[in-house]
């Protein structure tokens, strides 16, 4: 039996309202599938599931607001026998790393199905009562900030062993990212009017402010920058676009994203998250792209496996992501999975950006606008389209030397755009 719980989509998220079930009891569910929609203080999020099995029982119904960690539904995992309904218990799970009192009105208590018992939520840091966990596993999970409720135990009676925690850590678990504030969880919304919009914008500014203040307080940033000749990339793109129908035409931002993703393979330590004093290198390159929202604020959802996707597929995903970010239809994994962020202030903006790392990430790459400038090639001064690339990185994880090698790799990759 597994539980599908109200996810944490931002350090200051206390509760969420279940808006809609996309699956009904008895429906099969696949890992990664969208199962429900949840309205948080900051927006409507499509919530994915991380187990494969059958949705067995729903405990929370549309319109109900419940604290994060509340079990929304039970999942019968593949191969397991159906549970008698009475055996299920509703457990309110501890929230990881949440010390702050809610800023807004406290969430109402969860509405429970009749006959169920809710134990009081354990204090932060304590574990759910139902879990059987070996002390070594518990210690490791605490160190790595892994939510034990999402680890499947392989020991006797399903007890969680140290190797189970190791496995989850190695899998680049979404759980880890969920323990920290994902960039942009605070920042999506459906178009709404008047006061509610103003209130949301205020909360978004608070959330961005809280994350950035934490970054400035905790992360010793260093900065390196370089100017990149974009002539080849721009010509290649123009050539490609000539052959394409309008909807498939790419913008040059996509070559920057792809080059960053590939350069991270060479400098994988920049593709890490910093948790509880340890940098954890991530096996997948999930590039968060900062997207300005038209009504103010920003969101930085992830392009998953950006290094492995062909540029066409990545472009389609990017367009889709921008559209959904602006219409308030992002998915929970997109808000929790980024392993690095790119910010580009567009063609009408500035030439240089000094970005701030989004915790728990350890690096952020900034691109200024593309400008025609004099450039020396083979002893002659010519006019070239140039872009300034900046890296802000966490000095606890890397040094300027590695950072500069990273930007050099981005530059080199952009000189062979056809290989991206």
């Amino acid at each position, binding site marked *: 039996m597994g539980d599908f719980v109200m996810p944490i989509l931002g350090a200051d998220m206390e509760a969420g309202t279940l808006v809609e079930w996309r699956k009904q009891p008895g429906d099969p569910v696949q890992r990664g599938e969208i199962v429900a929609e949840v309205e948080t203080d900051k927006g409507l999020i499509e919530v994915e599931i991380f187990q494969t099995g059958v949705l067995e029982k729903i405990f929370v119904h549309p319109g109900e607001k419940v604290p994060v960690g509340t079990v929304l539904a039970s999942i019968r995992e593949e191969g397991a026998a159906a549970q008698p309904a009475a055996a299920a218990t509703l457990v309110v799970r501890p929230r990881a790393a949440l010390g702050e009192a809610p800023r807004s009105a406290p969430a109402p208590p969860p509405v429970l199905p009749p006959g169920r018992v809710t134990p009081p939520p354990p204090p932060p840091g304590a574990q759910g009562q139902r879990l059987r966990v070996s002390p070594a596993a518990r210690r490791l999970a605490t160190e790595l900030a892994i939510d034990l409720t999402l680890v499947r135990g392989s020991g006797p009676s399903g007890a969680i062993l140290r190797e189970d925690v190791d496995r989850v850590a190695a899998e680049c678990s979404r759980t880890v990212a969920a323990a920290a504030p994902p960039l942009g969880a605070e920042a999506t919304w459906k*178009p709404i009017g008047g006061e509610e919009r103003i209130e949301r914008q205020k909360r978004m500014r608070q959330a961005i402010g809280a994350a950035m203040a934490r970054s400035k307080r905790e992360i010793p940033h260093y900065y390196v920058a370089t100017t990149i000749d974009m002539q080849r990339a721009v010509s290649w793109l*123009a050539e490609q*676009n*000539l052959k394409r*129908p*309008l*909807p498939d*035409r790419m*913008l040059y*931002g996509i070559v920057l994203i792809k080059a960053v993703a590939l350069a991270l393979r060479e400098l994988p330590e920049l593709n890490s998250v910093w948790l509880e004093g340890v940098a954890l290198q991530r096996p997948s390159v999930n590039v968060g792209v900062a997207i*300005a929202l*038209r*009504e103010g604020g920003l969101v930085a959802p992830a392009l998953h496996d950006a290094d492995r996707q062909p540029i066409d597929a990545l472009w389609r995903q990017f*367009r889709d992501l*921008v*559209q959904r970010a602006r219409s308030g239809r992002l998915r929970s994994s997109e808000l929790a999975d980024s392993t690095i962020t790119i910010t580009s202030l*567009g*063609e*009408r903006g500035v030439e240089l950006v000094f970005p701030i790392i989004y915790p728990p990430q350890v690096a952020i790459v900034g691109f200024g606008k593309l400008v025609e400038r004099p450039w020396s090639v083979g002893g002659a001064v010519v006019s070239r389209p140039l872009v300034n690339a900046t890296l802000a990185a966490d000095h606890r994880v890397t040094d300027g030397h590695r950072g500069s090698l990273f930007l050099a790799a981005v530059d080199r990759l952009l000189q062979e755009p056809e290989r991206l």
Partner: protein
Amino acid sequence: MTREEVRQVVLRALRDVAPEVELTGLKPQTRLREELDLDSMDFLNFAIALHEALGIEISETDYPRMATLDGCIDYLATRLRI
């Protein structure tokens, strides 16, 4: 199709990419990108919306001709032989 109908198509496409902007006061000679704060993705979506509504291909090299509302209408009218 008349010029006025083309104008309505252009305004509808702009409303799609910038739903929160009040378009009634939009001056015909104002640069759209600056006035409506359209980034390159917005402009691409604007071009796609025009392509879908009018069935014409718009080449990237023609984008500069579409910088203003009047520019857009002139360009599209030429392409549609109005």
